């Protein structure tokens, strides 16, 4: 009994064997343990090879690059221009800008807890004590000081 050619067994697994040969090889393999073992080995190899699939991560505009003026020059090679630091620099700049804006906003609202009311009349004791020319914090200081009558 003549064994099946190994290349035919490979093509059988690859499903590229012509129907006539396929039938003949399959008939032989059913009765031949040697060829059956070989076929199993090829099948396993074929299946394992399938575990290595590749998927290009980036889809570049290759047609555009190939059409660039530089690439039109005969013998010249188009090259992919990469700026690895630009994205990082942009991220850092954006972070700084956000931090500055946040700091400005929080600082603005912490200084003026209550917006000053224009045209408000000072308390009467200010004029009594002659403090009209004092700065705007003076009434607050006086107001917060405890009266001497309540101490001790």
């Amino acid at each position, binding site marked *: 009994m003549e064994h099946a050619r*190994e*290349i035919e067994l*490979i093509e059988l697994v*690859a499903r*590229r064997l012509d129907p006539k040969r396929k039938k003949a090889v399959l008939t032989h393999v059913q009765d031949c343990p040697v060829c059956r073992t070989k076929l199993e*080995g*090829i099948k*396993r*190899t*074929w*299946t*394992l*090879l*399938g*575990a*290595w*699939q*590749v*998927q*290009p*991560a*980036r*889809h*570049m*505009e*290759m*047609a*555009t*690059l*190939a*059409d660039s003026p530089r*690439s039109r020059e*005969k013998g010249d*090679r*188009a*090259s*992919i221009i990469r700026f690895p630091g630009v994205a990082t620099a942009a991220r850092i700049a954006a972070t700084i800008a956000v931090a500055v804006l946040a700091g400005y906003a929080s600082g603005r609202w912490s200084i003026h807890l209550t917006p000053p009311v224009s045209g408000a009349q000072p308390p009467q004791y200010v004029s009594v004590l002659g403090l009209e020319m004092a700065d705007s914090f003076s009434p607050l200081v006086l107001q917060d000081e405890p009266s001497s009558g309540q101490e001790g």
Partner: protein
Amino acid sequence: MSVAEYEPYCLPAAAKVFSIKDELPSDTELMARLGQGDVSALGTLAERHQTRILSVAYRLLGDWHKAEDVAQETFLRLRQAASRYEPQARFTTWLYRIVHNLSMDQQRKAMKAPVSLEDAQAEREDPAQDSPVERRELAEVVRNAVGELSDRQRRAVILHRYEGLSHEEICEVTGWSKSAVESLLVRAYENLRKNWRHTRILQIETAGLDRPKAFNT
């Protein structure tokens, strides 16, 4: 049912509208248009074949950056050759021949040039991080096993197993004789079978991966 059979039951204009063939130009037609200066045809060709070109170049070279260079150079060659392109074989076979030859040129250059640390880093970053460890290991083992084959055996297996080329097409792409291609394939698959026995692949398989799933690198 073809459009011609369907025609008695609908308006001829409608039949034309529904004929998908009319809307999709063949690769040869696109090459002719490109030869006449229609650059948009190059975009369509790129869209259609880019992934395939990148994949085969990556498998041959093992480096995405080099694969991208090869793919880009391939489209440049297409553009330059479009005006004198005469279809003698299938367009994809011709395309594979360009990719194969450019990859071999790239490989020769790489063998002369020293390996930089940057390249080594890029390679380590390639595998997807969100995949199960076993599957990644299996893909890595398979990739290494293919990489350990002789140069010609590796090229034959990549074109045969991953690109689905027939023996005749591999002959056209590589310029080898049919008997050489068949001999290379038989030896390559045999060497891979032997290689599996000496690697961790059995452990990985017994860990529940008897039927390996596809894994992207």
